């Protein structure tokens, strides 16, 4: 019996185990994708600008034209969006660098710092993406009760680019949530490969947990 119970986790960790050492390729790949997502959101929103010449009034036969610009700096929510996405992508870059050179640092304090920083960055990016989302919704639909007109029918390219940046940032938010959860799970058992921590028989039966 002892040989049998020893053999079983060995085969599980053998098929799904990571390479030896403390590097974790799952989190590394997720971080690279999150870095790409948030960096692209930053760049697309930072370069978001559209100029349009509109006819404002007609006096006789000459029409008065006004040149209106839509820039991301006009809305504080979008400024926060650009800054927050830049900070989160910088954080991901830093974490990728530390996970590649992890053997130089004290291991447990490093894990704690990674978990705390991941949680803070989840909060940051969730705030930024939601503020930008609701401002974009206001620009797209307007608000008839407050007499605020929509602007997306005039500035279509601005709105489309903003929508693309928002989608990329939402992908980054989802990935940051997953990465943060994995970092917190790793805090408890830092030496196990990440897949064995999702085995449910490690945790108790659900009814017994309430005791």
């Amino acid at each position, binding site marked *: 019996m002892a040989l049998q119970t020893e053999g079983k986790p060995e085969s599980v960790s053998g098929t799904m185990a990571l390479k030896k050492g403390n590097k974790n390729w799952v989190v590394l790949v997720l971080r690279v994708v999150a870095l790409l997502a948030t960096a692209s959101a930053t760049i697309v929103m930072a370069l978001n600008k559209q100029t349009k010449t509109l006819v404002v009034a007609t006096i006789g036969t000459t029409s008065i034209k006004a040149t209106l610009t839509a820039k991301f700096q006009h809305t504080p929510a979008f400024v926060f969006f650009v800054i927050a996405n830049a900070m989160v992508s910088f954080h991901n870059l830093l974490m990728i660098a530390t996970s590649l050179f992890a053997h130089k640092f004290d291991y447990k304090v490093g894990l704690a710092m990674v978990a705390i920083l991941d*949680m803070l960055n989840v909060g940051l990016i969730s*705030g930024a993406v939601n503020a930008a989302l609701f401002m974009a919704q206001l620009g797209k639909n307007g608000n008839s009760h407050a007499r605020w007109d929509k602007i997306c029918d005039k500035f279509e390219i601005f709105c489309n680019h903003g929508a693309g940046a928002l989608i990329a940032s939402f992908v980054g938010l989802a990935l940051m949530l997953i990465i943060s959860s994995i970092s917190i799970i790793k805090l408890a058992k830092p030496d196990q490969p990440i897949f064995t921590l999702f085995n449910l028989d490690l945790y108790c039966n659900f009814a017994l947990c309430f005791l």
Partner: protein
Amino acid sequence: MTKNKSIFIILLRLLALGATVAAIAVMVTSHDSTVVLNLTFSAKYSNDPVFKYFVVAEAIAGGYSLLVLFLFSKQSKLWRLIIILDVVVTALLISSISAAMAIAHVGKKGNSHAGWLPICGQVPKFCDHVTGSLIAGFAAAIIYLLLLLSSLQAILSPVIALNP
């Protein structure tokens, strides 16, 4: 030490519950109307999808706080799941307060580039109510952040060997 820590965490959850309930209550009771040039201009929280999302998000966070307060203790094996759910709920709270503040900023200061006029001059009672509700929501988000950090510290103190 661990008993003090768990009492502190329970206290923080109670505070967060109180803050979310206060935010919901103040937001739901905010309405005002004026008559400007024969037009009735009424402002309610449900006119704007952001404030509806704010109420829903605070309700979810408050319900989660209630659930965790009464069902789970520190010794249960699901504490990792509770910390992960804490992260999700903190992100939800931060997102709701951030979005509500963005729209409230437009309501208070307007946006001259987009041609949006501020409405706080016409409906001051509504603006005051919404401001109070946002302050309560902000307090709830900060309390949840503190809760996350103290839960992490409660886990980490047996893990990190403190050198005397």
